[in-house]
């Protein structure tokens, strides 16, 4: 212990009042500081800010105990660090497989598969511009493609996360491949990344253009099917990342995500499903901006809200249903094309915010994402950044190390209030489905995006290299843009055409007819029929086209 301070050195009177005086005298005209979510930030936080002013229901709890402010597990990163889940996807199934086996050989235990944008659009490779095939993801159109993409991967042992929006044909292809290999579906584990059609509709629009009511039903069928037949699979990934990337403030993005989760959960309950069964298989996916403390507070506040919503509103009794499990990705919007190596610093700060915010899984962006699809060199640095943060920086020594900070606790309370304020707006609009259908959420996000852009354009928000600190750049140091091998893609396309010609047309038609009938019959399970279609040799484009025909074509609203 230090020696007690000599009484003569103690300042007389109220130290806080004295600090206020000195601060005012020295700062002159203080600048107003407001975070991205619109919350004013003071120059100093003290005991007087917390916990006296905190709302009554915002107790911290211990890690692993409700309301989980300090983390959803008792051990958090001290026990088991986050899953390092880097997104992977490029070229043909064979090119993807080679890279995947390489990643697995380096010690990765989880698979991630990003399909080509043509897959997101719900079309097959023979309906697409060849220039675009495989440039942003792997071209997987059939169960046979998936089997080749995952060659050498034990599907009973390896968790597979796939960006697989409605109607979840990639999982269907994987289940077909698993059955062919004799792997029990009950051993298959992983996540349908971004299965949240609402966020796709609102923000990044990478969904299949099936009209909203149809997308809603397919998701419900998917959750129900997986709960029953693939119990280790996480069929629901509720997404805030798209909305924050599109311009929502951190608080808005969290509010819309929680509102989406409530909508999806209540849709499941309306089908007669048990929240204690389906909620433990809900996961979340978020963006982490560079607004460090705000992001930490966002995640801490969200855990608290979800713990209350699941118990009080959704009626879940099993603690596993109360836990707010999330994957996060560092924000690409904060990255700059100017002085791109600076992005390594940005990603580091963003990742730290997510780690100290208590994430379960992390993707760090490559520094060159504002220049092109990430190069292998850029991707390697992104992985190394995680390794450094995990094993060099001592970030995992202590659970919730920012807990108890007067500022962080106050900000957590304030973010909670702001998140709940926005959730109430959505609630007043009739819930997330209706709020999205009416364009309310899209308009709010657009306004926030424009507000942020005007701050950057006016210089109020500094972006190093963009509106401040310009330097002459050496462009030759920039990474080489990775592009798939065009000849390999052409061969993949030729083989696909030959495959389609050689299949049993009758089997394909029977499966597609069955799928179409299921779309018109709510007692049937659409996803179950998608799996059957995959097993019958149907292609992704055929399955999507059938459902679009039956359930209607979804359009993005033109909202400026």
């Amino acid at each position, binding site marked *: 212990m230090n020696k007690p301070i000599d009484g003569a050195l103690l300042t007389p009177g109220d130290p806080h009042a004295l600090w206020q005086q000195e601060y005012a005298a020295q700062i002159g005209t203080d600048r107003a500081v407001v975070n991205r979510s619109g919350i004013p930030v003071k120059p100093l936080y003290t005991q007087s800010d917390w916990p006296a002013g905190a709302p009554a229901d915002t107790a911290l709890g211990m890690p692993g105990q409700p309301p989980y402010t300090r983390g959803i597990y008792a051990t958090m990163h001290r026990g088991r660090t986050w899953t390092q889940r880097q997104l992977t996807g490029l070229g043909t199934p064979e090119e993807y497989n080679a890279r995947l086996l390489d990643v697995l050989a380096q010690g990765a235990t989880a698979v991630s598969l990003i399909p080509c944008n043509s897959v997101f659009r719900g079309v097959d490779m023979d309906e697409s511009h060849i*220039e675009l095939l495989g440039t942003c993801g792997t071209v997987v159109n059939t169960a046979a493609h998936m089997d080749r993409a995952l060659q050498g991967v034990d599907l009973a042992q390896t968790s597979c996360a796939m960006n697989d929006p409605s109607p979840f044909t990639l999982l269907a292809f994987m289940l077909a491949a698993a059955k062919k290999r004799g792997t029990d579906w009950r051993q298959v584990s992983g996540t349908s990344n971004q299965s949240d059609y609402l966020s796709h509709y609102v923000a990044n629009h990478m969904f299949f253009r099936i009209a909203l009511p149809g997308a809603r039903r397919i998701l419900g069928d998917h959750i129900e099917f997986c709960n029953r037949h693939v119990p280790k699979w996480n069929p629901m990934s509720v997404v805030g990342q798209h909305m924050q990337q599109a311009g929502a403030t951190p608080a808005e993005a969290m509010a819309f995500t929680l509102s989406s989760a409530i909508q999806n959960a209540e849709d499941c309950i309306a089908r007669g499903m048990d929240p204690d069964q389906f909620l433990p298989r809900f996961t979340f996916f978020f963006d982490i901006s560079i607004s460090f403390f705000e992001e930490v507070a966002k995640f801490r506040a969200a855990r608290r809200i979800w713990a209350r919503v699941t118990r009080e509103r959704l009626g879940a009794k099993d603690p596993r249903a109360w836990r707010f499990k999330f994957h996060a990705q560092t924000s690409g919007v904060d990255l700059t094309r100017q002085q791109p190596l600076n992005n390594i610093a940005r990603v580091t700060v963003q990742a730290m915010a997510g780690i100290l915010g208590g994430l379960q899984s992390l993707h760090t962006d490559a520094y060159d994402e504002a220049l092109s699809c990430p190069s292998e060199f850029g991707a390697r640095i992104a992985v190394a950044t995680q390794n450094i943060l995990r094993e060099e920086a001592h970030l995992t020594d202590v659970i919730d190390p920012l807990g108890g900070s007067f500022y962080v606790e106050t900000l957590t309370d304030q973010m909670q209030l702001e998140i709940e304020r926005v959730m109430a707006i959505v609630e007043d609009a009739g819930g997330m489905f209706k709020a999205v259908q009416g364009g309310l959420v899209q308009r709010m996000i657009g306004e926030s995006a424009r507000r942020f852009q005007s701050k950057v354009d006016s210089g109020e928000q500094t972006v190093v290299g963009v509106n401040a600190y310009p330097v002459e750049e050496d462009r030759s140091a920039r990474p080489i843009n990775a592009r798939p091998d065009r000849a390999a893609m052409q061969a993949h396309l030729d083989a696909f055409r030959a495959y389609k010609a050689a299949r049993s047309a009758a089997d394909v038609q029977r499966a597609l007819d069955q799928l179409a009938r299921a779309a018109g019959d709510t007692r049937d399970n659409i996803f179950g029929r998608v799996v059957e279609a995959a097993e019958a040799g149907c292609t992704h484009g055929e399955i999507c086209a059938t459902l679009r025909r039956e359930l209607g074509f979804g359009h993005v609203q033109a909202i400026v």
Partner: protein
Amino acid sequence: MSQAREPGAAGSPSVTGRRPKGAGMTEAPIPKVLVTKIGFDGHDRGSRIVAAALRDAGMEVIYTPPWQEIAAVVKLATEEDVDVIGISSLATDHLIVPKLMDALREAGLADTAVIVGGIVPDEDEQMLLDAGVARVFHPGSPLAAITEYVRDITPAIRARRATPTDIAGERR
């Protein structure tokens, strides 16, 4: 591609902004701009922000949702008689912009300026310029730089595209 066969695949473009009444031919022309996305990507933060900035700068803006077919863009540009087409590309969709340029030339719209904004690697920028794209705006471009550029190039575009109906001031 299948979108082309789907009814209404183009989505509904929204027309914003108005040509102010009494805008005479001696004044600087009010640019008419189509802001759109072709290809597969759906990320529209950039196209929405740019469309709003052009509108707020007093221009006439036709905005479409993402995933437009090249043929649909050409049709819309023809029908709306735009001066400038702005293509937003975040995920390699710029690779089919040369196809758009060919289609515009075939439709007699060679004088319509095409600008591309978004993530365009250095080596692709030259490819786009060679294909006839007027300018590429990269991430970090101030909105004012885009609106000023569009305003600056419009008089020359109008002069090249001038037709009798144009001079009468009534194009639609």
